[in-house]
């Protein structure tokens, strides 16, 4: 135990930085992915058919691909295309693409589950379609997707560990480095798992509180 605490003290900064990067990449990819997903979802629900078709190809292609493959694809394809992204940037890019496709599908579903009569009601008071979207449809869709959105957030935190493979110095990568030095496999992988759990536990708690706050009674 004393040995572990000693090693933990030595590794504290590395672990802390890894954890911070994990949180930062997850948060950024949720943010960008949700913005992307919003555009994709609206296009899928209300776009013209060529746009819908294009978005459908994107969403289905990404959802049918393992995240790991997506991460490799982004890493190598971007380099091949002459775009010089760091490991962090290309990891963030891959997770955003991943999150955007999932959120797009979720938001499309939520929008299409709103009765079309709500659009009529908005039109009847003279709102243009984009205002109906902003003031009538999206607020209702938002309440519906909240639980699934939180889930996707937790999913992204877990998926971000895959970025270790392309050399992003996030939590798992840092843990691997530390274990490589002190060979305390069980202790440090256990700690790493506990930290992931802690982050997702907080996200889930936050989601529950937000769900209560925004629920339609």
């Amino acid at each position: 135990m004393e040995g572990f605490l000693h090693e933990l003290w030595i590794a504290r900064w590395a672990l802390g930085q890894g954890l911070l990067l994990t949180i930062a990449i997850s948060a950024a990819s949720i943010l960008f992915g949700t913005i992307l997903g919003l555009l994709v979802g609206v296009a899928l629900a209300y776009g013209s058919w060529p746009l819908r078709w294009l978005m459908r190809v994107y969403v289905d292609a990404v959802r049918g691909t393992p995240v790991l493959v997506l991460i490799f694809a982004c890493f190598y394809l971007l380099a091949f295309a002459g775009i010089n992204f760091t490991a962090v940037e290309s990891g963030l890019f891959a997770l955003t693409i991943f999150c955007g496709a999932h959120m797009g599908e979720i938001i499309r579903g939520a929008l299409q589950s709103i009765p079309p009569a709500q659009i009529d009601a908005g039109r009847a008071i003279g709102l243009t379609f984009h205002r109906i979207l902003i003031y009538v449809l999206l607020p209702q869709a938002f309440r519906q997707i909240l639980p699934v959105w939180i889930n996707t957030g937790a999913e992204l935190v877990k998926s971000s560990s895959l970025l270790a493979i392309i050399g992003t110095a996030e939590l798992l990568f840092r843990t691997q480095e530390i274990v490589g030095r002190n060979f305390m496999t069980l202790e440090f992988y256990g700690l790493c798992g506990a930290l992931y759990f802690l982050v997702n536990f907080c996200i889930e708690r936050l989601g529950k509180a937000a769900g209560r706050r925004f629920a339609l009674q």
Partner: protein
Amino acid sequence: MTALLSIRGLTKRFGATEVLKGVDLDVNQGEVVSIIGASGSGKTTLLRCVNLLEDFDGGEIHLDGISIGYAVKNGARRRLRERECARQRAMTGMVFQSFNLFPHLTAIGNVMLGLVKVRHMSRHDARDRAQSWLGRVGLADRGDFMPAQLSGGQQQRVAIARALAMDPKLVLLDEITSALDPELVGEVLATIKALAKDGTTMLIVTHEMRFARDVSHRTVFMDRGLIAEQGASADLFRQPRTPRLAEFLGTANL
């Protein structure tokens, strides 16, 4: 005197079915007109065309002298842009069979949305106006309730306030009591009677024959996409001229 609403030769088809086969109808300022007829006769579609919730295939609708939905130039008709259509829709108010309140907004929020976003009133003025309309439909103390916390009759009265607060030139009511429990119908009809007394111009699609007879100045009977008969409500219900209307009123048991 030119009519406030003037419909000429209106046609509308859904695929192969011709729902409206050339409807002509005028509604004067301050007049209350009821449209009755069997299901599928085109009543609701007619109303939805006036508020541009449906495109129509032929004919013209003029509201207060403005061509609704389409610009007609040298015989060619062109659909107006979304923004222009939205402006025209704001000239009419519509109340729906299924209320269609916005479930994420409070009662007063429902009434305020159009005032703030379409009429560009300040939130403060909009709140005052919405509150006064909630008062007129007898719901002054329900402003902060969510739609789900209100009864059907109350929800429909909020919907009426939402439509009327916009100060529309013409109010369209689409079977507004059909989704209500019988004991809640009265409160909604009383609200409409009060509006009629104040001179609100209304076009009402209804299955409540007694209401059509008592409240509207004129009643229009639609049959298979055409106006089969129309006249002053009192006369039309007492002495139908066409066998179709006589038959319809016979089954409606007044």
